[in-house]
């Protein structure tokens, strides 16, 4: 037999939970149909009990939940957000993803590194600080962003950071002081209530509708604290859910179908149709589950965070309606691990809701139970994919699952499950009479659909885009932020109009816009005069996606921008399917080489080939998510790629974009 390899195994310290932690774990286990699902929450208990998730903690959790230690190790290693044994007291994570990078995150990160005297991944000698590079924190309007032990520090510049750090040194408890910090550009009023129609009578005037539109979804936001139950009810909340539970579930689903509501998470699938796939209890007996996808991690998207942190009851009311429609007695809110504050807010709001009978044994009327559980993720972009989310919810690695069967047939714990985005669910109360609104009001908002066969130009019809919508604008605009503007307004107007984003920063020119999040195609400056709606943006060659609009000014190096995007995807591929696991990293390395002046013309063809070889060949659409931007950036800005290759250097000297010359707003 061959001689054994030398081993350097880490030592496993024996751990045990305090009685309080043990009781907490037992309470958590009861919230799920299977013990295993309590794995992620149990590891959070480890973090609190032992300061980190170490091998001893993993072993302990494995014993408590009847899992093998290898399984727990595999799960822990999939996620980036658990505290490692080597982490210092404060883990400072600086966001390096594109929306932050466009607003100076690269320089800021260098400053943090200098200030702390350590490189990313290192811990200071005194064990106080650990610096990490992180990915989109869903606060892109307040870039650059860093997180300290899970709490956001926003609108940072070197000076602000130094001040906050000094404060932290003096008062170590102050790391979470900036939770719920103020937004620089709150959008609570119509852009111009007195605007005049410009279109002839009888024709829809989307510009006028938008200018006079009173923000709906963001109506109760921007208070600097979450809206309470009382405030929410006073505003007309929980009327929708009360009305909905009195309607038979099938009728509720019909109404949602009729509303034309499309999923706001990225794919834009008709919500009512999705619900309609839930089989009858004769076909598939047993539980149904509603799972809320609050794993908002598509770079550039920050609408769900705002909705949850500022107006949690809107989501909870929607949950009651959706649960009633699909016959679920258990709703799980899968929230991103990074959103510590958001999870706290939700927990409080849920407690309030239980107190007021929104949830509980009789929540849905006639003795029908409804329970709602907040389940925290742990740092994996892929968990935003609905089946990966279910894998993670069940306590495993966030691996997307083979479809079919679709979750509506066989989802969480093998039972019919509906996974909906936060904003999708937040739309529901409006169509059932909350806030004095109605289904007719809802349907009147946005752009209409078109039945198949009516117009020869659209033989399969148009699905339309209806209801209120929140747009997340980040990057090189004067006023980045959330815009609660109905579908139909021109993208160009949203960006350039002083009543909205106020044009490009520092008087620069527009170079391009990504309208739907970093997974989608980029539009050039001359292509952006397009209506903000699913159909029109699809025609323009991109997608509304998660409504994350990045704006690039003319100083942006598109090669560097693509490299940034691909770094993100190479890091976030779950590694299950071959084409995505290998293709994402390969592409990233090629683009890195081009940016560093070592590319060849063949590389561009290779990137295209990698994209073609990966797209549509994997379990989920992650392959598309890194292929589409790569192909599109190269197609749209080929001259820049060629210039990098021909000049054998980055014409911009390796910078993503010019630094901003104007002062930033203060939080």
């Amino acid at each position, binding site marked *: *037999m*061959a001689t*054994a*390899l030398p*081993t350097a*195994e*880490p*030592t*496993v310290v024996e751990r045990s939970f305090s009685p309080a932690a043990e009781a907490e774990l037992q309470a958590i286990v009861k919230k799920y149909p299977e013990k295993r699902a309590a794995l992620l929450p149990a590891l959070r208990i480890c973090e609190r009990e032992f300061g980190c998730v170490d*091998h001893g903690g*993993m*072993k302990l959790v494995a014993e408590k939940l009847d899992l*093998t*230690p*290898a*399984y*727990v*190790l*595999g799960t822990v*290693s*999939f996620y980036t957000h658990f505290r490692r044994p080597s982490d210092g007291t404060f883990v400072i994570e600086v966001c390096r993803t594109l929306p932050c990078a466009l607003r100076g995150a690269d320089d800021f990160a260098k400053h943090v590194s200098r200030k702390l005297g350590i490189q990313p991944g290192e811990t200071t000698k005194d064990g106080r600080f650990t610096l990490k590079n992180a990915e989109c924190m869903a606060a892109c309007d307040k870039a650059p962003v860093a997180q300290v032990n899970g709490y956001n520090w926003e609108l940072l510049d070197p000076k602000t950071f130094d001040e906050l750090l000094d404060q932290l040194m003096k008062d170590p408890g102050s790391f979470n002081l900036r939770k719920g910090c103020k937004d620089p550009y709150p959008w609570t009023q119509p852009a111009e209530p007195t605007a005049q129609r410009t279109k002839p009578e009888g024709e829809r005037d989307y510009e006028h509708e938008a200018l006079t539109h009173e923000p709906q979804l963001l109506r109760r936001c921007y208070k600097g604290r979450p809206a309470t139950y009382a405030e929410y009810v006073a505003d007309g909340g929980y009327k929708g859910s009360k009305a909905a539970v009195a309607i038979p579930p099938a009728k509720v689903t019909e109404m949602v179908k009729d509303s034309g509501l499309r999923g706001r998470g990225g794919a834009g699938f008709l919500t009512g149709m999705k619900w309609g796939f839930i089989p009858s209890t004769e076909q598939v007996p047993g539980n149904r589950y509603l799972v809320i996808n609050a794993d908002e991690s598509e770079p550039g998207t920050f609408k769900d965070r705002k909705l949850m942190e500022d107006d949690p009851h809107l989501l909870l009311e929607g949950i009651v309606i959706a649960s009633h429609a699909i016959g679920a007695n258990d709703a799980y809110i899968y929230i991103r691990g990074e959103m510590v504050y958001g999870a706290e807010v939700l927990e409080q709001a849920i407690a309030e809701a239980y107190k007021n009978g929104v949830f509980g044994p009789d929540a849905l009327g006639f003795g029908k139970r409804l329970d709602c559980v907040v389940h925290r993720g742990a740092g*994996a972009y892929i968990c935003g994919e609905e089946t990966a989310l279910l894998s993670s919810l069940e306590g495993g*690695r966030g691996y997307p699952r*083979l479809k*079919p069967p679709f979750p509506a047939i066989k989802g969480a714990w093998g039972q019919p499950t509906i996974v909906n985005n936060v904003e999708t669910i937040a739309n529901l109360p409006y169509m059932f009479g909350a806030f004095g609104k109605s289904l007719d009001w809802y349907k009147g908002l946005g752009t209409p659909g078109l039945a198949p066969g009516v117009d020869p130009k659209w033989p399969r019809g148009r699905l339309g885009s209806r209801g209120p919508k929140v747009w997340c604008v980040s990057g090189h605009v004067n006023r980045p932020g959330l815009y609660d503007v109905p579908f139909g307004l021109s993208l160009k107007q949203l960006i350039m109009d002083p009543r909205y984003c106020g044009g490009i920063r520092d008087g620069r020119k527009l170079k391009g816009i990504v309208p739907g999040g970093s997974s989608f195609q980029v539009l050039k400056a001359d292509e952006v005069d397009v209506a903000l709606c699913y159909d029109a943006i699809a025609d323009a060659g991109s997608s509304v996606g998660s409504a994350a609009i990045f704006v690039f000014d003319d100083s942006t190096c598109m090669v560097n921008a693509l490299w940034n995007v691909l770094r993100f995807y*190479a*890091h*976030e*591929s*779950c*590694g*299950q*399917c*071959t*084409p995505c*696991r*290998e*293709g*994402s*990293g*390969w592409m990233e*390395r*090629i683009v890195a*080489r081009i940016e560093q002046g070592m590319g060849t013309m*063949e590389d561009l063809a*290779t990137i295209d*080939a990698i994209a*073609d*070889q*990966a797209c*549509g*060949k*994997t*379990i989920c659409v992650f392959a598309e998510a890194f292929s589409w931007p790569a192909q599109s950036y190269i197609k749209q800005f080929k001259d820049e790629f060629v210039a990098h290759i021909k000049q054998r250097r980055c014409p911009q000297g390796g910078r993503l974009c010019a630094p901003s010359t104007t002062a930033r707003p203060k939080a």
Partner: protein
Amino acid sequence: MTDTEHDFTFAIDGKSIPARKGDTILKAGLRAGVFIPHYCWHPGLTVAGNCRICLVHATKTMPPGKPVIACATQAVEGMEVESDGPRTKALREGVMEFLLVNHPLDCPVCDQAGECDLQQYSFDYGRATSRFHEPKTQRPRKDLGPLIRFVGNRCIVCTRCVRFCEEVAGTGELGVVGRGAMSWIDTFPGVQLDNPLSGCVADLCPVGALLDRDSMHTTRVWLLRGTESACGRCATGCNINVETWNDQVRRLTPRENQAVNRWWMCDEGRLSYKEAQAPTRVRRARVDGREASFLDALTRATDEVRKAQGGVVALTTGFATNEELFTLKALVGKGPIAVAYAPDGSTFKARDGFEISRDKNPNRKGVEAVLGATDAGEAAVIAALEAGKVGLAIVHDGVPGGAPWSPTLLAALKKAAALLVLAHDDVPGAPAATVLLPAMHWTEKEGTVVNGGGRVQRLRAAVPPTGDARVDLEVLQELARAAALQPRVLSAAGVFRKLAAAAPLSFDGMDYNGLGALGVPLGEGRAARPASNGRALPVVDARTGYEAGPVSRAPGRAGDEQVRVSVHRESAVGYGTPRGDL
């Protein structure tokens, strides 16, 4: 599958494929002899669908035009699958290119080379040139357990091994750790991959990431010559390939037999070939304690048989083949036979039904079938010895490490006029023999054994007997010839024919060659015989429908150097081939 056993048909590359409801494209295709490449899919494990090499284009899938994975997509009536066309070729070429992006090109020093699915598919579907110019990722190398080494850089994260430990062994030592291109297989610190079936993960690994530490760096696999046999370590009787080079066993690998061992074998069995190389093995014949030539020893033994004039008793074990037992029985005539069984050992039941038998005798059932009840045998042998009526006691001890003879029996043996011992090992406490001959290990034997489930299976000689030993069965037959019990020495097939014809009902109708590679249950000899209907010879593929991989541990590989033709004996008459002994 006959026409009556399928529910519908669909087409792969225009060929009509019969399928049952619920069949995937891959499964129905393999059953019908259409090969679709696969890494992560294994018939004994759940579907993971992650390697993507089995992507095909098919009609009647959603959304139309998007390729689907054959391993997870159910075939439906009238579906048309393109598995061998330009579009599918492009898909596989793409997946192969991705797999090789971070895979080291260390084939010259890789133990899997020659039986590597990655190599084979590179040959079948790979690109001629590489477009990858970037540095490769580096992943750890580690011994996961006593039998398994992990070479991370070669891992393609198909998770076969992880699923095996979870779903079959039920021990779950392995997990995928990390994420994306930096994921690999690992154990928890301080936990060893040492379940009783751990060696199977090396068989399952389609690349050289998990290696059998016992056989690695010893022989290039293309030099190995495989013999389809059955494992002689316990009563399970796993179907195996005995892989040899230069007349030495280099490794044992399992061979699929759904009725016995599915696709697996245990570590104990896997390493059991080492018993044949033990230093205690008897290698030379001895007469009266002095080394002698084999011929001298055999002559002395035959003399003793003649002298004994029927006063012969025999001691045998649960390790003897049916043919040896049958000959021994003929030798003693009405005399008694004592049987010693190896003591019970450890047992293990896998989640999928595979079981390591507690009974460590490969042929206990055979002893019962050939000799009948032997409970009184030992007492009868002792009585005969004590009475001083024994001219020759024959001890056939083929148990590695020596059979557990009872002390009273050993004491009584001293009273035999002559003692012939065929022993596997020369161990303290062995009977003091007049004539000592080396006995064979099961990897050296030709014959049949009956496993714990009552299945008659063939052992095939993979290597020649050790030292100057000769075939046990021949030695026993030489004695029988000397005693004028049979005119000539037959092959194992010949003895088996006599056994099947003469003896118990259980072997009735069985044909040595007809046992094939997978064996026949006791009592089903007649049913298992192919029907003779005067038409062309039925071609029966000994292999079951599908295999673990096209190259790695493919059951067919073992026999490729020995083309065997099995002909039904009634047909053989027509060809002028003598019946039975060939």
